[in-house]
C-alpha cells in the first residue's frame, strides 16, 4: 500500500513539475516562477465600485512626487502597472 501511495505522490510531483515547466518554457523557468514570481503574485481584493487606493509616486525626474488621487476626478484614469523586463 505504501508503495502505491509513494508512486502516486511521485507522479503528482512529476505532473506539477512538467506543468510548470510547460507554463514557464523550461525547467529553469519553472524554478524561477516558483522561487521569484509566486511570492509576488496576488489576486488582490479590489473590486469594481471600490474606492481607488491612493499612493505616492516618484516622477521620472527622480525628485518630484505626486499622488494617484491627484490624477483622478476630471476624467477616467487608465493606470497601467508594469516594469521593463
Amino acid at each position, binding site marked *: 500500500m505504501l508503495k502505491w501511495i509513494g508512486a502516486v505522490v511521485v507522479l503528482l510531483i512529476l505532473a506539477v513539475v512538467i506543468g510548470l515547466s510547460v507554463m514557464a518554457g523550461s525547467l529553469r523557468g519553472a524554478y524561477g516562477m516558483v522561487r521569484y514570481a509566486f511570492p509576488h503574485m496576488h489576486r488582490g481584493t479590489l473590486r*469594481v465600485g471600490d474606492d481607488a487606493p491612493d499612493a505616492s509616486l516618484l516622477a521620472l525626474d527622480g525628485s518630484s512626487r505626486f499622488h494617484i488621487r491627484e490624477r483622478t476626478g476630471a476624467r*477616467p484614469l487608465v493606470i*497601467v*502597472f508594469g516594469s521593463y523586463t
Partner: protein
Amino acid sequence: MQIYKDYKDHADFLTVYVREAHPTDEWQMNSNVKEDVCYAQPKTLEQRVAIANDFVKRFNYPTPFGIDDMSNAANDAYAAWPERIYIIDEKGRIAYRGGMGPFNYHPEEARAWLASRYGEVKREASTAVPDKKNN
C-alpha cells in the same frame, strides 16, 4: 501605445513602474537577453528611476509616468505585479479591474471600456495586436 493615442482626448493615462518582473538576478527570460533588456532587481529608488527612464527613452513612451516606492505601496494597494490595468472613474472608484499579467493581462478589455463610453476608434491592422508597449 495605441490606446493612449486613441483615447487621450477622453481619458487620462498613468503608467506606474513597479518592481521588475524578470531581472537578471531572479527569473530572467531569454527574450529579454535577445532584446537587450537586462537589469538586476533595483535595490534603491534611484535604480528604479534609472530603469524607468531607460524604458521611456527606448520606446519614446508617451504617457505620464510614476515610479512606485521601494516599499511597493502602489503595487501592494493594487496587487499590480507583474502587470495589470485599472480604470478609475471620475468619482475615484474602480471602474475596470484588469486581470493579473501575463496570462490575464488584456488591454483590449480596457479599450472596450473606453469604447463603450466614447466610441470605437478604428485602428490600422499593424497596430491591432495589443501588448505591453502597443496596447
